[in-house]
């Protein structure tokens, strides 16, 4: 996150209308992005959607077929990687196996013929930033995955780039270490204050550290926004489903009064949605509700005149996971809905809900979002 203290030293990156094909395969289709100075910006999408390709274009390893890439307002097309102020942390670390940790980190300085004294100081400074001073003399093959990762980060930072490109830097680590390294990356970002462009297919990672996220699929950028915007206000069905879990209702809009929309879901009945949309009465639309925004109860809840949707069903599967239970509820129509219930307050005396129990689901129209519409 952008914290007040760190000076913003990074560069901004503008990608406009960039396309890239490999043979007949279109890896990137007309991608436009604008990344701000000092931002922790994530490219999030499933494997094969073109994240690495976009990163390689920014890094200068490939040239786009169309479009432009600007760093600090200046086009970098045709500029080789060694002439751009960005450095990359590669997915496979790409440490030089014939060099020690120290020599790996010193590599960029030696290439630039930096005096030895300065090399020693700088390398030790960056090794201490990633807590590896003790391992300076080891070869990469003697390091654990997390340590290799840190060497790669120190090596990429030592040239003091204005942009750091990270290609799924944590994907080779186990879950616990991944969490830890993620927090470390975040604190390194705060310390160095440069622009981070972070590629990941893990929505949890992206949500927890990014200032902004670009969600990609099949070579296209579907939505750009803060983690909250992406999660709370997904702009397409794909984004809604890819980020976290969600429930989607296909409805036909029957009434519209400002943001108050009413519709009809086949087999379920009326559905109330409050969302700004240009959908018109008669359109088909997809409305989504997050599982944690649905209340589950045995007794039928009161609407008290509010715009609340109430549905009836049977618990098909309760999945207990400590801090919460995930219920898969089969509605009378046969459709299944996922519900999360946090175990915050057992003292309130909420009756336990179990397999095969008949339940009511209730959720507010305000929590629903229309993700796609089709005029008919």
């Amino acid at each position, binding site marked *: 996150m952008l914290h007040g203290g760190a000076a913003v030293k990074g560069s901004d990156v503008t990608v406009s209308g960039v396309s890239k094909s490999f043979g007949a395969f279109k890896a990137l289709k007309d991608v436009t992005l604008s990344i701000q100075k000092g931002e922790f910006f994530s490219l999030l999408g499933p494997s094969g959607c073109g994240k690495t390709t976009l990163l390689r274009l920014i*890094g200068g*390893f490939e040239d786009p077929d169309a479009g432009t890439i600007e760093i600090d307002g200046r086009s970098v097309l045709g500029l*080789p*990687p*060694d002439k751009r102020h*960005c*450095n*990359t942390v*590669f997915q*496979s670390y*790409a*440490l*030089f*196996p*014939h060099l020690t940790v120290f020599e790996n980190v010193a*590599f*960029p300085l030696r*290439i*630039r013929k930096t005096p030895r004294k300065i090399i020693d100081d700088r390398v030790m400074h960056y090794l201490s930033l990633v807590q590896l001073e003790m391992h300076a003399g080891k*070869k990469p*093959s003697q390091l654990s995955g997390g340590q290799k990762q840190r060497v790669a980060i120190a*090596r*990429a930072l030592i*040239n003091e780039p204005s942009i750091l490109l990270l290609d799924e830097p944590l994907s080779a680590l186990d879950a616990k270490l991944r969490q830890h390294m993620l927090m470390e990356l975040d604190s390194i970002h705060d310390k160095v204050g440069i622009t981070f462009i972070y590629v990941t297919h893990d929505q949890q990672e992206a949500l927890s550290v990014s200032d902004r996220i670009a969600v990609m699929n099949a070579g296209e950028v579907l939505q750009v926004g803060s983690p909250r915007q992406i999660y709370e206000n997904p702009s397409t069905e794909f984004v809604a489903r890819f980020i976290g879990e969600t429930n989607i209702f296909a409805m036909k809009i029957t009434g519209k009064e400002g943001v108050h929309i009413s519709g009809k879901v086949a087999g379920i009945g009326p559905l109330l949605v409050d969302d700004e949309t240009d959908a018109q009465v008669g359109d088909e639309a997809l409305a989504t509700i997050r599982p944690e925004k649905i209340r589950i109860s045995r007794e039928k809840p009161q609407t008290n005149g509010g715009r609340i949707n109430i549905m009836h069903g049977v618990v098909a599967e309760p999945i207990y996971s400590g801090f919460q239970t995930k219920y898969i509820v089969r509605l009378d129509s046969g459709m299944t809905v996922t519900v999360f219930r946090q175990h915050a307050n057992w003292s309130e005396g909420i009756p336990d809900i179990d397999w095969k129990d008949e339940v009511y689901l209730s959720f507010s129209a305000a929590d629903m979002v229309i993700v796609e519409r089709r005029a008919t």
Partner: protein
Amino acid sequence: MKQRAGFLYTLPQILWLLVFFLAPLCIIIAYSFLKKGLYGGVEPQFSLEAYQAMANPSILMVAWRTLRISVIATILTILIALPCGYSIARSSNQAIRLFLVIVPFWTNFLVRIYAWIAILGNEGFINDIIRWVAPGSAGIQFLYNQWAVVLVLVYMYLPYAILPLFSTIDKFDFTLLDAARDLGATRFQSYTRVLLPNIRSGLVTAGLFTFVPIFGAYAVPLLIGGKDSYMLGNIIADQLTKTRNWPLASAISMTVTLSTTILVFLVALRKPKEQKWVFDADPSAAMSAAGGR
């Protein structure tokens, strides 16, 4: 138990070495310390004459020339083989390209030498063209000098260098080159600072596979070279067939074998522990490659 089983696996190799390598070597050693027979062969009488004869300046001069030709030809071979091996390793149709590298092996060694004579000879293909373009000119004598010998040696041993280089470069992680470029290295620096150090074992193997056989070359300098390109292999052959001084031939062979063996072991000992030999080439394989010619 385990050790004994391990011994069984190495038995064929040990037998092979004994019969085809050590036994002939012992005979050569023995001959080199005997007195020369009148019409070839040896007299069963201990003598150091052969080794004294070796100190002859003309032999020493040929030894020096052999070393020089071998070093130059090896360096040229590797300089050509490196980009070849690299491009094969990076290409998408490796099989076809590797196949093309080994195709020449299907033709006899001597036939390939004569093919070069047909191309470069005084009555050869290129001189035909020269005389056709410039009627009346005598053409150019390409053959019968050291450079012709080097050229044909490089041609002959190129595949021996390409194959081990290809096999190490193929295992090389090319993202390391991207990383080097990313960290500020020029393309050339990425090759010299990252590629070369990581394919050292392939370079060493390629160097040995080329240097060792070239050092013992016989047919190429005989057919392609002139008076100035006589190499140790030719002297040995002359001593056996013409001068009929078998002990001297044995002593020179011994020295050649011994010095190349020492070279191979020095190189083998020098290699860093982590790096494995490509081709699993143990020194004896390099030696037997040399034995062929």
